[in-house]
């Protein structure tokens, strides 16, 4: 699957009219054709397409993503620098999203059609329709411009200045969190509602557990099982949202790198970044599949392969 994806990416980028080397040099006029050739040779652009692909894949498997067309840095270095910030952003966002969505989902599931449930449902529909960058801009408008509480843009490495790093990550992570919380909330609510109809809930009640205990000890674990898969999907969506968010907030992660790469026609960087992101997505889904087997004991006995 990954292989197919990589081919897809590669072929797409190669079927282009433009020549990246030319972009690098700016105007074509006055450029020594020999130098052009030499650079192309250095970047491997004069080999045939299948050859280039094999080179790339070979490199990837060895952990070497090639060299950026634009700068002289190796793509690996670039990716290395930008990977951590993106992961940090995603992790903080996910944690915030769960902190909001899980309790809200439980409450909504326990009291369907109540005022609170309807309010939350409204929030969910809006959250799912709201483009992350619009929300980001709104938050910036409120918190940065009007109230001047938090900085709007920028990035500082965690190792350098943890405090500044956290203040800077807050707005983008919150934006991402709100967008992700909505589908999780909605799914958990439905899951809890469904679980509460199950007979074993009645058994638990009949045993003498308080309702609060019934929900937390019996309904919730069962409701979480399918929710975990949804979280896997969310991670995938988040990877897309991350791109624009990073751009909006000037957060130096992989997303911003990708956008940069496109603007500069830096295919070496672009194809590797996109491939990496796709790989993360696929791995995330695999992990979720495996997790499913761990959480739900019914799937363990004589489980099927993925």
């Amino acid at each position, binding site marked *: 699957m990954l292989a197919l994806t990589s081919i897809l*990416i590669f072929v797409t980028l190669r079927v282009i009219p433009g020549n990246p080397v030319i972009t690098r040099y700016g105007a074509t006029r006055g450029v020594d054709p020999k130098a052009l050739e030499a650079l192309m040779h250095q970047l491997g652009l004069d080999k045939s397409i299948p050859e280039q692909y094999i080179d790339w894949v070979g490199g990837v498997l060895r952990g070497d993503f090639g060299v950026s067309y634009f700068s002289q840095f190796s793509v690996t270095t670039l990716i290395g620098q930008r990977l951590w910030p993106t992961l940090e952003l995603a992790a903080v966002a996910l944690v915030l999203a769960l902190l909001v969505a899980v309790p809200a989902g439980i409450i909504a599931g326990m009291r369907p059609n109540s005022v609170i449930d309807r309010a939350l449902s409204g929030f969910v529909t809006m959250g799912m329709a709201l483009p992350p960058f619009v929300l980001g801009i709104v938050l910036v408008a409120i918190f940065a411009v009007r109230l001047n509480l938090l900085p709007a843009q920028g990035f500082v490495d965690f190792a350098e200045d943890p405090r500044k790093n956290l203040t800077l990550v807050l707005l983008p992570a919150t934006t991402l969190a709100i967008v992700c919380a909505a589908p999780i909330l909605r799914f958990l609510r439905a899951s809890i509602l469904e679980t509460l109809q199950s007979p074993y809930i009645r058994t638990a009640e009949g045993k003498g557990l308080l309702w609060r205990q019934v929900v937390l000890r019996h309904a919730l674990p069962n409701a979480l099982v399918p929710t975990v898969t949804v979280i896997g999907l969310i991670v995938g969506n988040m990877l897309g949202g991350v791109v624009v968010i990073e751009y909006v907030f000037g957060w130096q992660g992989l997303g911003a790198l990708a956008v940069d790469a496109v603007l500069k026609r830096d295919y070496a960087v672009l194809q590797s970044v996109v491939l990496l992101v796709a790989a993360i997505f696929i791995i995330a889904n695999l992990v979720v599949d495996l997790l499913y087997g761990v959480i739900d004991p019914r799937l363990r006995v004589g489980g099927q392969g993925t």
Partner: protein
Amino acid sequence: MHRLIRRRAAVVILVLLGLLIVTAIAAPLMTPYSPTGIAAGDRFLPPSAAHFFGTDELGRDLFTRVLYGGRIALGIGAASTVIAMIVGVAWGFAAAMRRGWIDEILMRLADSAMAIPTILFALVLVAAFGASTINLAVIIGLLLAPVTARLARSAALDELKSEYVLAAVASGATSMRVLVSEVLPNTVPALLVLATLNAASAILAEASLSFVGLGVQPPDASWGTLLFQGYQRIYQSLWYPIFPGIVIFLMIWLLTLLADQLQSVLDPRGQESVRS
């Protein structure tokens, strides 16, 4: 359609949507200003009676720009939805009808395309082909095609299980005929819902691309471009990015709500559709 009209919520949504679309299309009629006219003296004015949304850094009326931007955004949105539906439905139906290894291949292709987050894939395609209006429509359309294909395929498979299809096949109908006279008409409700959701996704995609500068290029400006220009100058005028943002959000939200309404009316037993 009649059932839809009976629902109050649906009517409200349709009216609002209609309003948005019509005002955008009829832009020249709605505003005396020109989207490109420069009036240097009135930069960054807040909203007022003369300028509903205020003005931008060149003194242009924002309301006008948003309206004209709507033409482009909605145009691309509509075109890409059509492309997505045509390609996706053909793709999905072909897989459903043929089964076997063709189905396998087509769906694997769809899955690998779906593994790449939409925006990133969009970036890749724009990098490859450039960002003219037509390109954008095609690119976004192609982006939405794999998901459409998957859903069209399951809708088709559902239909193929039903008895009147078996009856048709038993009486000697060819697969093409079955497709056209049985499968297609009965999947229309689900496809309609899908089309609405695709429209929402298309608008989102176009706005995102334009926002990062890879969409509609100046001097044309779609909502996304306006949003970007506004964001750059947010410290000078809060209103500048807010209005395009609200409009984008409204459009997507209304379309999503409409899809929900359509779903409950036309296809109440249908599954949860995938929303990007």
